[in-house]
Structures are given as C-alpha cells and as structure tokens.
C-alpha cells in the first residue's frame, strides 16, 4: 500500500468545511424563530397584572379569581387558621420552601414567609401535582385545600401536607394598595421591594 499520511488539505477541503459550517449555523439560526414563536407572546406577557378589591371579604371567606389564565385563591383567614398555620411544626412540612415569588428562592416555608398580611392568604390555585384546582374553604385533613384529582392535602397556609403534590401552592407577586383594601397581583419587582416583603 502506498501511504497518504500527510496529505495537505486542499482549497476544496476548506470550501467543504466552510460551506457545511455555514449551512449548519444558518440552519440552526433559522430554526430558532420557529421554536420561539411557541413561547408566550408579548401581549400574553403584558397581561401580567390585575387589581382586586378585597375590603368586602368577610373573615373566613374565600374567593377565586382568574390571573394569567389560572385561578388565584384569596382567603381571609380566621384567627384559628392563622394560629394553626403559624404553630405547625416545621418538620411536618414535606416541602420546606416558601415558594413565594416575592421572596428569595431559599426562604423557608414558615407561615410568615407565605403572607404579606397574615390575615390574607393569596396563592395560585393549581395543584403542584398535575394542575387541577383544589377544593377550598377548609377542605382536606389540614383545614386548607384538598385536590380531588389525586388526593393532595394542603394546610391553612396552602402548604402541601400529604399526597402526590411535590410543592406548596406558590405565592404570586403581589402588593396591597389603598391601605390594604386592594390587592395588585403581578406586581413589579420594584413594587415588591417597596411593599415590605421580608424573609422571616
């Protein structure tokens, strides 16, 4: 056999690689718009905030409102519910994170990290298991919410206590306006910073 060990690269080799590389990069760049078009559009993102008057809520009353296509629970808790949520031992919580978008990710799941005003519990209303809407008004074994789909129980702070759901119901960004009479859901990070949210 003759040896072709050190054959010099030719101009044609260079053209092959350059053309192939340009086609690959160009192809990848062309694919991106076709993928990204499926992400939430600008107007969808702009529907980010709504206001709700909560001054007429009675103690122990609960309402569900639509926010970003899904339900949000607003519950005016009783003294007993607040006490129960505060007194729950930390090691009884399967998920020990606050899941509060107003606070840093590493905030713990104590009740004080779940609310701005302990009287009003405001959480997103889709079960963290597969997205069903749990039944509220003190349902379940822990006086909070119960998801009928696969049997998750949430407590009076909407923290997961038993069942397949992996996480506590998340707290959306919000602030109070008009001396607490109105809640603004989808508050900006500046508004959140000025509203008095702090890690307990």
């Amino acid at each position: 056999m003759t040896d072709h060990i050190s054959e010099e690269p030719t101009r044609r080799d260079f053209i092959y690689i350059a053309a192939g590389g340009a086609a690959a990069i160009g192809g990848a760049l062309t694919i991106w718009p076709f993928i990204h078009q499926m992400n939430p559009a600008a107007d969808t993102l702009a529907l980010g905030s709504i206001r709700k008057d909560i001054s007429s809520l009675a103690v122990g009353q609960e309402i569900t409102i639509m926010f970003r296509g899904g339900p949000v629970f607003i519950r005016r808790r009783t003294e007993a519910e607040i006490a129960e949520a505060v007194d729950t031992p930390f090691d009884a919580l399967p998920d020990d994170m606050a899941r509060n978008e107003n606070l840093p990710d590493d905030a713990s799941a104590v009740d004080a990290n779940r609310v701005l005003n302990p009287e009003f519990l405001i959480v997103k209303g889709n079960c963290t298991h597969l997205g069903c809407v749990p039944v509220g008004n003190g349902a379940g074994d822990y006086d909070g919410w119960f998801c009928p789909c696969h049997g998750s129980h949430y407590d009076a702070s909407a923290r997961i206590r038993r069942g397949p759901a992996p996480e506590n119901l998340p707290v959306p960004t919000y602030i109070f306006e008009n001396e607490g009479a109105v809640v603004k859901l989808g508050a900006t990070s500046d508004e959140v910073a000025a509203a008095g949210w702090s890690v307990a």
Partner: protein
Amino acid sequence: MSHQSTYNPQTGFEKWLDARLPIVRLGYDSFVDFPTPRNLNYWYTFGGILAVFLVIQILSGVVLAMHYVPHVDHAFDSVERIRRDVNYGWLIQSMHANGAAFFFVAVYLHMFRGLYYGSYKSPREILWIIGVVIYLLMMAAAFMGYVLPWGQMSYWGATVITNLVGALPVVGEGIREWLWGDFAVGNATLNRFFSLHYLIPFLIAGLVILHIWALHVPGNNNPTGVEVKGKGDTLPFHPYYTVKDGFAIVLFLMIFAGFVFYLPNVLGHADNSIEANPLVTPAHIVPEWYFLPFYAILRAVTFDIGPISAKLGGVLAMFGAIGVLFVVPWLDGSPVKSMRYRPIAKWCFLIFVIACLGLGWCGAENPDNLVFEFGGVGMKFVVLSQILTAYYFAFFLVILPVLGFIEKPTERPASIEASVLGSSSNATPAE
C-alpha cells in the same frame, strides 16, 4: 423478497404512461399480483381496516375543520353547532369521534397480532419500528383532537397531560410554558393543537407508505412464522386478500356504524358536555379509554425511586411503556417467530393481554377505591395497577429475553404449504 413485476400494459395509453411514470405498475405489483402467504387468518385484516380508518378520519376531519372555530370563546359552541345545525354534522362529527376509538381498537388488535406471531423479528424490525412511530403519532393526534371541543374533560385532560412535562428536572417548566404559549392551557394552546391535529394525519399517511414499503420488501409474516419458501406458499393478493380484507372491513364497519348511529356518545365522557372552566376541576379526570392503561401506569408509581420523584417516575414509566416497544425485536431472543410453537411464551402473552386490559380497568377507577373487599380486607386499585405494571415491564424486559434461552419450541411445519395442506399431503411434487 420484492418480486419480479408481471404487469403487462395492454392499451396504448397504459404503455405510454408506463414508460413515463410506472404508477399503475406499482399498484399492480403491490396490491394485485403481490405474492402473499396463503395461510393469513383474520387477525391479518386489521392493517387494511386501519388504512380505511385513516381515510375516514382524514375525510371527516377535513369537513369538521370547515365548521369548527379554534378559539376558546367559540370552540365549544361551534362543535355543538356542528352537532345540531350543520347539515349532516351530527353524522360526520360522530364518525370522527367514534372513528378515533375504532382506530385504536384496530391498532391494538394489529399490535397484539404482531406480538403473538413475532412479526417484529428479523427481517421486519424496521417495519415494526415504523409501526410504533405511527402509533405514537396516533396518540398525539388523538390527545390533541380531544382537546378541540373545549369541554371540561378536554381542558383538564390537556392540563394534566401537559403538566406531566413539568415533572422533568430543570427544563420541565420552560417546556411546559412553551407548549402552552401562555401561563396555563389557553387560546394559544387550542390554536396550536388544532394546527398540529390537522398536520399529524398526513405525517401518518406518509409513514403508512413507508410501513407498506417495509412490508413488501420481506413480504408478510404469517401465523406459522415460517418464511415463504416457494410459489406453493403464496397466493396473489387479488382476489384472495382483497376479498378477505374487504369482508373484514365490512364487518368492522357494521359495528362502527352501530356506534355512530345508536351510541354516538357512549365512549365519551359526560363532563365534556360542559364548557371548559379553568376555575373548576371535574371530580374525576379520566382520559379516553384507549389511554387508560398508560394512565394507570402513570399513577402506579406512588413512591420515590432514589433521586427520582414519584411524579417524574410515573412519567418515565408511562413513556417507557411505549418506548420499550421500539426495542422488542432485540429483547426477544427466540428464533421461533410464531407463539403457536412457543408453549411458554404463548401463556405469558395471554397474561400480558389480560394485564393490559386490567390496567385499562385500573386507569378508569379512583386509585384508592377497592378492587374487592372480603371480610374487611381488600385491595386498592393502585396496588392492582402496580402489580400489572410490574408484569407489563417484566414481559418485555425479563420474560421475552429469558425464554429465548430456556424455552423448547414445539415442532414447526416444514413450510406454509405443508401447514395448510397437512404433512401427509404430497401436493407438491419434488422438483
């Protein structure tokens, strides 16, 4: 083997066309003169039935798309309008909805037949894999189609299934929003599902052509699993199998028509007659019946496996149950194709079929309900589904590979012809 073409153009036009585009020759060689094993039984007619149902679904679907409005405010009402006001809409909508169910009846029988007679074995692995891809696309089309009427079960089925993707670590939530095009299942989701639901049947049609191509290279398998050896083993496709397939298609369509005309809603769910409401979840969410076994497998994983959460584990098990089908040709080590001659595999297969049906039953029930109760003790459905899920995977991952080593097959016929005419027959003189 691809056989020698015997097409003989008679008229001047046929000769002119054949020299330019031999499409009549292709049809003649594929569906008229194609040599087909002479012993195919009625389990082999479901391929033809499936082709008919693909056509039914595409034709009825094209019509429905002329009247359907893919918008969250109008979708539900537009389907009700089709069922009440559009001329023959009640018929065409019923054909499409029930057609999906019968499509799955046929595909499951087709797949069980392939498993029993070893139709996935060499040289038909590619044929089998294309079939599994078609099955996956059917599931995607059926899932998205079920969302379009925008009833409660449509909406919450879509929510639960797309939330499964959220179980994936790190990228899960991003992919979920990408699928939704929103922060929840909404109008963007409905629009894209409609677009893809219209696209997928044509992808399936393309794959069906590849499926038939991959079938016609080695030729049909048959109930003996013995390959075609000579001319005496085969019959021309027409008229022998056009008639046999045609008869089966007519019988199957009669049952289908019974549902279309007299039981149009029996396979549906009452909750889907309520318009989608993102604030209220139905008490009991179930998928369409043809997904129930996989839904049961999803819910059977109620425990964490090491770093894998129960939620992710369930998702992996569900997709694994379909994914395992891709590698069946390499899991089954037995050189004998047909389970007719595999005394142990035959019984394991029967239990496998029962396990699949049992999983369907579990998928329809609340996991915490009791299968039976006897003197205060009983078994929950979740436990039954765990047992059956274990068997489902054991059948593919343990039983089929192990039987390849330990099973002693019974005696097989020398040829297809001998199996049909009996071993004592001397119909074929030695040549």
